[in-house]
């Protein structure tokens, strides 16, 4: 087991900068999830850690040792790929044993290792099959098994579940989380899936265009996004953004004026100067029909009743910014009518002209040790 330190990682493909000065420290045993839009460099970063990609600059340390000059197999890593990447003409057993065979480990030791892992992952009955004879979920389990057999210091996962259907994905997600708890290994996990990121991660790293936008605990990122990008990227449906203007500051926070909503005071630190152009952020789930000190009128365009919640799409006043609203349960709403929705200014996010967030004062969760629920205290 070991920690992972990336310092100033740079990767260029010709003139294109794909990774720009990435600094990251992953402590021993942590489960880190990389998220970001397609093409932002997540896979490239993962391959760089694995040694499958030459760096243009920077250094990588695993367990305190610089691994820059080491081949992938010598770095103490194992990787699970999106396409499973099982050896098609080898049996499940040989797929899992391959790394140890190449490392010239004794035959009976290899056998023991593979059997042990096969037992953990319930693959014992499949050991003689070829990958083509397995289902998608089984293939991914074999790929994970192949990684575990290598007994790596750091596990690297590149969207391992994205080729599975929703039900299986949910199940494998729990299995991987369970595996992490059991092996206590350092894991780096790339995903597109918000739920995977939020539920599995000790820490989420949000990447955008080759840079780290923000990193932190999932709920910290959700409730205190550092900038517009992270705010819009995390959470589904994503946050509504409405143009606003600063009119003053008080002890209670920033006073702003929003066309279509009116004046409100958002409790944030470091209030902006009057006249500054701002962006107000409102999460769909922070709206309701009854609760909250502010309200706004929305032209509803589409109502999606999902049973446990209802998603409303519309616009703020005529031709105003598009809004998405998520309400608990299944209130009876009709499309094509103006509806008033309420929200609490304390739930609002406020971003400056440069897109950087003002720190919100509302404490949305308290550490687990205190026994409080994660949603924390509503006023």
């Amino acid at each position: 087991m070991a920690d992972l330190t990336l310092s100033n990682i740079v990767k260029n493909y010709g003139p294109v900068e794909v990774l720009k000065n990435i600094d990251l420290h992953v402590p021993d045993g942590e489960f880190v999830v990389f998220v970001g839009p397609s093409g932002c460099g997540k896979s490239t970063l993962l391959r760089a850690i694995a040694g499958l990609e030459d760096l243009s600059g920077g250094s990588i340390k695993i367990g305190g040792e610089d691994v820059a000059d080491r081949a992938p197999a010598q770095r103490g890593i194992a990787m699970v790929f999106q396409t499973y990447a099982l050896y098609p003409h080898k049996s499940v057993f040989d797929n899992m044993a391959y790394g140890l065979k190449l490392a010239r480990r004794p035959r009976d030791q290899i056998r023991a290792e593979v059997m042990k892992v096969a037992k953990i992952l319930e693959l014992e009955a499949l050991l003689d099959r070829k990958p083509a004879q397995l289902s998608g979920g089984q293939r991914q389990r074999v790929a994970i098994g192949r990684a575990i057999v290598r007994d790596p210091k750091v596990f690297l996962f590149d969207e391992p579940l994205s080729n599975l259907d929703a039900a299986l994905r949910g199940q494998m997600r729990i299995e991987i989380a369970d595996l992490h708890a059991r092996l206590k290994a350092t894991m780096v996990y790339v995903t597109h899936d918000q739920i995977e990121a939020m539920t599995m991660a000790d820490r989420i790293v949000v990447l955008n265009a080759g840079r780290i936008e923000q990193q932190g605990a999932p709920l910290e990122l959700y409730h205190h996004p550092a900038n517009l990008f992270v705010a819009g990227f995390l959470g589904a449906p994503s946050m509504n953004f409405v143009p606003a203007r600063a009119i003053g500051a008080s002890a209670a926070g920033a006073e702003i004026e929003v066309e279509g909503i009116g004046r409100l005071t958002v409790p944030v630190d470091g209030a902006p100067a009057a006249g500054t152009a701002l962006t107000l952020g409102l999460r769909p789930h922070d709206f309701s029909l009854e609760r909250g000190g502010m309200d706004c009128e929305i032209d509803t365009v589409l109502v999606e009743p999902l049973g446990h919640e209802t998603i409303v799409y519309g616009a703020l006043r005529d031709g105003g910014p598009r809004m998405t609203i998520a309400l608990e349960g299944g209130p009876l709403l009709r499309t094509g009518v103006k509806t008033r929705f309420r929200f609490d200014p304390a739930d609002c996010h406020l971003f400056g002209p440069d897109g950087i967030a003002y720190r919100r004062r509302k404490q949305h969760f308290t550490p687990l040790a205190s026994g409080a629920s994660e949603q924390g205290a509503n006023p």
Partner: protein
Amino acid sequence: MSAAKPRKRASGWSLFIYVALAAYAASAIFPVLLVVYNSIKSKKAIFGQPLSLPGPGTIDFRGYETVWEAANFPRYFLNSGIVTLGSLGLTLLFGVMAAYALTEFRFRMSRWLSLYITIGLMVPIRLGTVAILKLVMALGLMNTPTALILVYTAMNLPVTVLILSVFMNTVSQDLKNAARVDGAGEYRILFGHVIPLIRPAIATVAVFTMIPVWNDLWFPLILANSEATKTVILGAQQFVGQYFKDWNAMLAALTLSIVPTLILYLLFSRQLIAGLTRGAVK
């Protein structure tokens, strides 16, 4: 209702395709058949009714007797075999390695190297015959199978590298990376993981490089025309002298020379078809 129409049109179209292909196949096979069945006709019949099939009056195996007695034919067959298999082996070995390097690694001159190889595809090697002849003489390789093997390897490498590159690009990058993480070296990845996946392509390349080599007359004539190094095709030419032409023997020799190619095709045909259709679809 609406589904019936396109189907009807498709069947008309495929009928047309079948007819066109059948016509093409017939025109390609016809000369070969002509050679084969004329080889068992008497000389008079060959000239008198070249298109008619051999019958009771015209059948004559004299050509095969002549070939069997007159010439060193087993020797020629052996020479053809050595040259063909030798150049095939070298072509595939170097072709596979070059294609892997060009598709898998980014190095300073890789673009230029690809271009250089592509140019080799466009310039017929026979244009360089004089230079090749000089080179072979300087190396002291005149009248050796080695000379032919080297020339044919050079001749076939461009197309081999090109075809194999296309197929190697289809092998999953993740698979190669998984093998790297498991500790496999590049040679092991190439020979143990990539080649098994592109076997159809290799069979295709093998057949397409082998047949022109087996059938070539030009380079054996120029570089290896001694009795000991003659190939079958060159050997067959001895029946066509300036003043005397033994058509029976000539046709018999050519017919015999088709046999190995045919056997080869039957052996490889499944892989060959897989290779061709995959190349066409992708």
